[in-house]
């Protein structure tokens, strides 16, 4: 095998439409492209001219899997312009809603999209034949995340209950208490998920990544914090665009990102975990250690364990919030618009999601900028692919292609909140 080309025209088990192209020449990797082929969606353009209060509802439509992330980043950006501080129980409810999204998204990816890779199945349906109880547990666990989303978000899909300054309606204590017993079960199930994922076979792959995520002095990050990295980044969110730049590459409709005058970087569960291990509750730290993880995990294949650890955190955090909950007097704090620029960044299941808006005195959006985690990770995914192929040229075409796809799925890419079909071509030169 001196020359060959690996081509995957449409990647399977990712959200949206992406392609993979790897060219090997004289037993060396000549080219790697992870291409996003979804057409541009122009959200930033059609946010212009809309009221600042509409941003959470409009941007929630960007993604069917992580709408809460869009609502949180946009709401925080608008609140920063209006000098509105959402605190106390309203802040706790936002974290609870986010926990619901993390549980739902992480469990979907761990069990139904990623686990089949490790267990050697083409998809979750085939896996379910041999592991029915595992899949049943996954669906039950995912449902609890969905129940939180429905209760706080107002409906099954594209939640509508988040507004700038808080919520349109807040739940009673009694309504939230119904989630306590299911969440206690979910916490146990998520611990079993960590144990299960720790038994998977993990190919070797490690790079000297720059891990970028939020960090908050008092908590594992969801909605707020400074943007930090293991290579010295420690900035206010308002400095995001002074620190990170986006670059257009020919083979992707999604912009790449890199730390200015430095390099590409890694965002997502592994970055959060590595930058914030000390902020995880003890139950999640213990589960991670028992699964063989140390405080820093650099093998992206092990991101499946990290997602499971974060699911433990989300269940634990949801329980904590519900147990201390007192219904606030008002569901929101009034936010008065003024001419200004605001920034919001929150931790979507797949990584840091940055929003920037300029609004005028009437609250009309003049400019919007949204940088989602998957676009930030594209370049690092290509580096992973290059390194992985270089080390695994001895593998059969079939196995190499499969594992290259797995390298991409390590990042749970959310290409457009949609998915997928696999058509595979391997061309030998």
């Amino acid at each position: 095998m001196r020359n060959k080309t690996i081509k995957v025209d449409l990647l399977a088990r990712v959200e949206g439409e992406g392609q993979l192209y790897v060219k090997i020449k004289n037993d060396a990797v000549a080219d790697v492209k992870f291409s996003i082929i979804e057409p541009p969606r122009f959200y930033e353009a059609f946010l212009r001219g809309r009221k600042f209060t509409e941003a959470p509802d409009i941007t929630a439509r960007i993604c069917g899997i992580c709408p809460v992330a869009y609502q949180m980043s946009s709401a925080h950006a608008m609140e920063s312009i209006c000098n509105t501080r959402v605190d106390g129980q309203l802040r706790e409810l936002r974290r609870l809603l986010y926990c619901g999204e993390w549980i739902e998204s992480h469990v979907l990816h761990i069990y139904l999209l990623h686990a089949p890779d490790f267990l050697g199945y083409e998809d979750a349906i085939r896996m379910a034949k041999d592991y029915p109880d595992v899949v049943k547990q996954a669906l039950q666990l995912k449902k609890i995340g969905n129940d939180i989303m429905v209760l706080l978000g107002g409906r099954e899909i594209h939640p509508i209950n988040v507004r700038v300054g808080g919520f349109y309606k807040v739940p009673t204590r009694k309504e939230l208490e119904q989630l306590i017993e299911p969440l206690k079960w979910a916490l146990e199930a998520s611990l079993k998920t960590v144990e299960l994922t720790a038994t998977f076979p993990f190919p070797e792959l490690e790079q000297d990544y720059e891990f970028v995520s939020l960090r908050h002095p008092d908590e594992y990050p969801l909605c707020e914090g400074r943007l930090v990295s293991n290579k010295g980044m420690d900035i206010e969110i308002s400095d995001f665009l002074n620190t990170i730049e986006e670059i257009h590459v020919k083979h992707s409709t999604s912009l790449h990102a890199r730390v200015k005058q430095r390099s590409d970087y890694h965002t997502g569960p592994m970055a959060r975990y590595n930058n914030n291990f000390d902020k995880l509750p003890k139950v999640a730290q213990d589960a991670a250690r028992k699964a063989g993880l140390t405080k820093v995990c650099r093998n992206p294949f092990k991101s499946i364990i990290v997602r499971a650890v974060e699911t433990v955190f989300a269940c634990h955090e949801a329980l904590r919030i519900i147990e201390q909950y007192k219904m606030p007097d008002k569901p929101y704090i009034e936010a008065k618009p003024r001419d200004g620029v605001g920034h919001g960044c929150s931790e979507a299941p797949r990584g840091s999601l940055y929003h920037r808006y300029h609004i005028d005195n009437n609250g009309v959006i003049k400019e919007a900028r949204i940088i989602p985690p998957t676009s930030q990770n594209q370049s690092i995914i290509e580096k992973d692919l290059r390194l992985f192929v270089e080390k695994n040229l001895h593998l059969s075409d079939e196995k190499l292609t499969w594992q290259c796809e797995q390298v991409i799925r390590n990042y749970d890419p959310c290409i457009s909140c949609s998915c997928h079909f696999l058509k595979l071509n391997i061309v030998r030169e």
Partner: protein
Amino acid sequence: MSEIYSIAVVGLGNEFRGDDAVGLYIARRLKDKQMPGVRVIEGVSDGTTLIENWQDTRGAVLIDCVSSGDQVGKIHRFDALTEDIPEEIFPAYSTHAFNITDAVRLAATIGQLPPHLIVYGVEGATFSTGAKMSDRVITAANRVLELVLKDIENFR
């Protein structure tokens, strides 16, 4: 969460894409009837959520728009417990991680199909952004609503 529902009806689709909204159109009309014990759901985030919605029900109905090349307004009806859902009508390709066919197959594999599961597909014609539902699809939707009401009676 506090109510006990014995029947679930899920309408799927995108309300801003012409005939694709037919599932939501029917779901909303059914919701207006406020039938006791019937939970009406408009859209789900991914196909596995369908399984969550029909778990522990006596029967469930799914309604979606299809584009198989058949006559516009044609109503396809399948009993998912006794018939295969044909891929030429509900193709395996979908813009979602798990489509209806996947969800039915997964549920069948792990024994989580409800005692009754009826799947409707209404042939659409127009799917462009901002388009209205076509007249023939609205006529078909009203017919499907009648059929769904009969299904609900049969489940009880």
